[in-house]
C-alpha cells in the first residue's frame, strides 16, 4: 500500500472490548462482528490492492441504530467507515484498523413506490438493479446503470454519484435522486429533499451526493423513476482508428443528437470482450462505437439513419444495427463485461476513471500509448465517449515484483494527463484513497480547504471516513483560522460610488 492513512489511535485500540460491548448494546445479535475470520470479507472493497481489517464491523438495521452507533462513536472519539456493497473502485470503503466499519447491507427494503409521482423510496442497501426490478412491471426503470449494477447499492451510488452508460442522456445519480434521510456523525437525523423538487435553502442533497461517505450516513433514499422508452436500438460501428471514432462522436453531438448511450472500446478491450462474451464485435478494427438510440420507433429509425450517415462520413468500416432486443442486449453485454473480460487476459488489472474534454481524446490516447511503452504495461481503453469519461484498464501481474507499483505510477500519469488537458481525476469512481494524493494536481490548498471546512460543518471531529479524498488531514480548528488585519488590507482603486 502506497498511501498513508491517519495515525492509529492507540487509546481506541486499547478500548476495543469496551467499544464492541457498547455496540452490542445498540445492535444486538449478529449485527456486531468482531472475530478476525468473520471480519475478513470486509477488509477491502473493489480496490483490492488495499486491505485493512477494521476494529469491528457493525451492521445496523434501523435509522435509530445508525443514529445511536454514530452518537456513541462521536462521543467516544471513534472513527467510522460506512460501507454499502463494497464495490468501490477507489477504496472509499477501505476500513481503518482503529475504526468501526458501518455496513448498511441490512437496509435492503424497497419502502414504497409511487407511480403517480414517479418516485420510489428505498433503503440504501438496495442494489441499483433491484430498484429497476421493483418498478419494471409497470414499465418504469431507474436510469443510472453503473456496470456493477447487480451488486452496487443505492447508498454507494449516492456516495460516489455513480453514472453508467446512459447518463449522457439521463443524468448521473445526482440528477435522479430527489431526497434522502441522513444521519450526521452526532447522531442527528436530517431529511433533505423528498418527493418534491428543489427544496429551498442550500442544496445539501447535491453536496451529499458524491461525498464518498464523508458527510453523513444515508438511511433512506427517494429516487426518480422513468417510463421506459418505447423502443431502443443499438448500433455497433467499427473504425480504423480511435481518432475516426472520436470524430464521429463529436459530429453526432454537433448534429444535435444526444444518444441514450455512446460507448467506445479500443482494439485490446474489444478483443478481450469478444473472447469472453462472443457479442459479435468486429475484430479487424481499431475502435468500436456502440450508439444507442431510444424513444418512439419512428424517432429511432430517423436518428439511426442520421447517425449511420455520420458514421459513414467518418469512415466507418463496419456498421450493424440491432434488429431485436436480444441483439441490442448482446451489444451491451460485451461493453458491460469489459472489466471482467480484461481480467481474463491478465492476472490483474487496474481501472482508471479520468474525464477529459472529448476533443482531447486522440491526444490522450496517443500519450497513453507512449506511457504504455514507457512502463512496459499493456492498457485497454473503455470510454464513455459521449461524456468524455475514460476507463483505461492497465494490465499487470501483482506476482511480479514491482508491477503493481508500475501500474499505479502509470495510472497516476494518465490522471495527471487528464487534468493537464482540462479534465478531472475521476468521473464516477470517486477519489477515495486511490486518487487522494493526486488532488493537488487539480486543486489548490485554498480550494481543498474550502471543501474540508464544508466537511467540518457536517463532522466537526473528523471521525467519518477520514483518510479519504483529502491528502492532508487538518483539524477543523486549524482550517477555520482566518487572518484578517482590519483596515490595512490591500485595496486597489476599485471603482466606488
Amino acid at each position, binding site marked *: 500500500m502506497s498511501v498513508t492513512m491517519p495515525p492509529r489511535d492507540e487509546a481506541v485500540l486499547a478500548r476495543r472490548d469496551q467499544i464492541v460491548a457498547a455496540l452490542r448494546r445498540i445492535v444486538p445479535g449478529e449485527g456486531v462482528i468482531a472475530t478476525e475470520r468473520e471480519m475478513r470479507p470486509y477488509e477491502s472493497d473493489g480496490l483490492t490492492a488495499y486491505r485493512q481489517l477494521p476494529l469491528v464491523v457493525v451492521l445496523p438495521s434501523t435509522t435509530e441504530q445508525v443514529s445511536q452507533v454514530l452518537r456513541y462513536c462521536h462521543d467516544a472519539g471513534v472513527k467510522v467507515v460506512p460501507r454499502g456493497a463494497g464495490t468501490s473502485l477507489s477504496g472509499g470503503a477501505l476500513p481503518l484498523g482503529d475504526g468501526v466499519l458501518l455496513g448498511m447491507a441490512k437496509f435492503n427494503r424497497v419502502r414504497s413506490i409511487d407511480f403517480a409521482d414517479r418516485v420510489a423510496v428505498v433503503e440504501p442497501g438496495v442494489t441499483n438493479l433491484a430498484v429497476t426490478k421493483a418498478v419494471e412491471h409497470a414499465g418504469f426503470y431507474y436510469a443510472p446503470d453503473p456496470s456493477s449494477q447487480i451488486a452496487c447499492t443505492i447508498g454507494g451510488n449516492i456516495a460516489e454519484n455513480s453514472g453508467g452508460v446512459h447518463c449522457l442522456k439521463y443524468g448521473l445519480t445526482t440528477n435522479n435522486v430527489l431526497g434522502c434521510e441522513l444521519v450526521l456523525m452526532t447522531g442527528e437525523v436530517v431529511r433533505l429533499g423528498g*418527493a*418534491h423538487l428543489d427544496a429551498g435553502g442550500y442544496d445539501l442533497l447535491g453536496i451529499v451526493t458524491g461525498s464518498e461517505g464523508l458527510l453523513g450516513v444515508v438511511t433512506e433514499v427517494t429516487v426518480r423513476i422513468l417510463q421506459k422508452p418505447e423502443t431502443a436500438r443499438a448500433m455497433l460501428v467499427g473504425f480504423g482508428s480511435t481518432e475516426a471514432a472520436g470524430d464521429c462522436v463529436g459530429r453526432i453531438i454537433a448534429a444535435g443528437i444526444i444518444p441514450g448511450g455512446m460507448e467506445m472500446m479500443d482494439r485490446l478491450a474489444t478483443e478481450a470482450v469478444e473472447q469472453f462474451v462472443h457479442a459479435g464485435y468486429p475484430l479487424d478494427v481499431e475502435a468500436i462505437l456502440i450508439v444507442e438510440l431510444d424513444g418512439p420507433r*419512428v424517432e429511432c429509425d430517423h436518428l439511426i439513419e442520421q447517425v449511420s450517415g455520420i458514421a459513414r462520413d467518418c469512415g466507418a468500416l463496419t456498421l450493424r444495427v440491432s434488429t431485436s432486443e436480444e441483439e441490442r442486449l448482446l451489444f451491451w453485454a460485451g461493453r458491460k463485461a469489459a472489466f471482467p473480460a480484461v481480467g481474463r487476459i491478465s492476472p490483474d488489472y487496474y481501472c482508471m476513471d479520468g474525464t477529459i474534454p472529448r476533443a482531447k481524446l486522440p491526444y490522450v490516447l496517443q500519450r497513453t500509448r507512449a506511457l504504455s511503452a514507457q512502463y512496459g504495461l499493456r492498457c485497454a481503453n473503455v470510454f464513455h465517449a459521449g461524456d468524455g469519461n475514460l476507463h483505461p484498464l492497465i494490465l499487470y501481474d501483482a506476482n511480479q515484483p514491482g508491477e503493481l507499483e508500475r501500474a499505479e505510477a502509470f495510472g497516476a500519469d494518465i490522471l495527471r494527463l487528464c487534468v493537464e488537458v482540462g479534465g478531472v481525476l475521476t468521473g464516477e469512481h470517486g*477519489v477515495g484513497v486511490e486518487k487522494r494524493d493526486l488532488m493537488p494536481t487539480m486543486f489548490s490548498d485554498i480550494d481543498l480547504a474550502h471543501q474540508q471546512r464544508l466537511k467540518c460543518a457536517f463532522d466537526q471531529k473528523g471521525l467519518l471516513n477520514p483518510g479519504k479524498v483529502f491528502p492532508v488531514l487538518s483539524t477543523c480548528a486549524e482550517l477555520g483560522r482566518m487572518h484578517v488585519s482590519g483596515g490595512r488590507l490591500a485595496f486597489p482603486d*476599485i471603482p466606488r460610488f
Partner: protein
Amino acid sequence: MTDTLAPRDAGEVEAAVRWALGAGKTLEIVGHGSKRAFGRPAQTDATLDLSALSGVTLYEPTELVLSARAATPIAEIEALVEAAGQALAFEPMDLGPLLGQPPGAGTLGGVVATNLSGPRRLKAGAARDHVLGFTAVSGRGETFKAGGRVVKNVTGYDLPKLLAGSFGTLAAMTDITIKTLPRPQTEASVLVLGLAPAQAVAAMAAAMGSPFEVSGAAHLPAAVATAAGVAALPGGVAVTALRLEGVAPSVAHRRESLLALLAPHGSCADLDAGASRALWRSIRDVTPFAASEGGDAAASPVWRVSTAPSRGAALAAAIASACDARILFDWAGGLIWVALPPSPDAGAAVVRGAVARCGGHATLVRAPAAVRAVVDVFEPQPAALAALTRRVKESFDPQGVLGSGRLWAGV
C-alpha cells in the same frame, strides 16, 4: 447612502471582500439587480456590484460546455447558444416581469444563485443540474474553484450544486461553467380542456407516466389561462397543457399517441410549434401573475410551492378554501404558483399551513420588502437542519460578510 464597490475583475472582487472583512462591513452581491426583490431583505453596509464581470470566455458546442464571467447577461448567453442550435435545457425563467422589472435582464450568476428553472425542470433538471464548475471568492476573502468543465466529475464535493440556489450568501461567483444541450428541433402541445385541478393532475400523471417524453405539464384554471395572453388558447376554459419536443417525426408521432391517451380525460386540442412556444414562455415566466398586470399587482404576494405532484391539487384546494387565490400549476402539479390578495403576512399562515399538511416547501417570491422582513421567505427548517445550514454558511463565510440574512436571519 449605501456604498457601492464595482470591481472590474476577479482579483478586485477578492480585494473588495477582504476590505469588507477588515472593515467589518457586510456586502450585498448584485449583478443586474433584477432579482434584488427576491429573498429576505438583508441589511448590508455596501453593495458589491459585479456587473463589470461580463463576457463569455469559452463556448464549445460539440463539447456541450460554456464558460462565462458571472455577470454575463443571460440573454446574451441564450442568444449565443441559440445561434449554434443549442439551449440551456433547464429553461431558466425570467423573473423580471413577476417582480415588476423589465423582461430580458439578469445575469448567469443570478440565474445560478437563485437556481432558476422552467417547465422543463421535471425532465431536464434545474440550474443546479447544469452548473459544471465555478470560481468564486468566499466570505473568507479567498478565491477558490470547484467542479470543472466536464459533465462526469466526482473529484471533490459537488460545490457547484451548493452555490446554485445559495443567493450569494456563501461566495461571490466570478466565473461559471455550464452545460449546454441541443435545442429541440420542434415542439407541439396537447391540451385537455375544462378540467378541475384534481382531474388535471390525474391527466398530467398519465402523460408523465407514458413513454412519450413529455417536457412540460401545466394546468391553468380558466381565469389564469385567459391572463396568459396566448392567442391560440380557447378562451374562458381551463387548459391542461402537455409539451412534446424533439425531432419532427417523433413529435408528430407522440402528439397522436398522447391525444389518444388523454382522450378519456376530457376534450382535447393541440398547438403547433409557434403557439406551443408562446404558451410555455408564458407559463415559464408566470405571465398571468406579472406585476405589470393591473395596478396593485406588485403588492399582491406570489408564492412558489413545490410538492409531490399528486398532492398539488389538494394543496392548492387547501389554500384556495382559505383565501381568494389565483393558482397556476406547473411540473405536473408539483409546482404551484399562488397569487394572493395583499395582507400583512402575505398569506403565510394559510400557505405554510397547507404545506405542513401536504408536504413540500413554500417560497414567498413576491411581496413588499416590509412583509418579507417579517415573514419567512424560505421554508422554515427543522432545528437540526437549520443548525447544519448555519454551519455550512459559517464554513464559507464565518463573519457573515456576504448577503447575510438573504435566506434566513443570519444565513
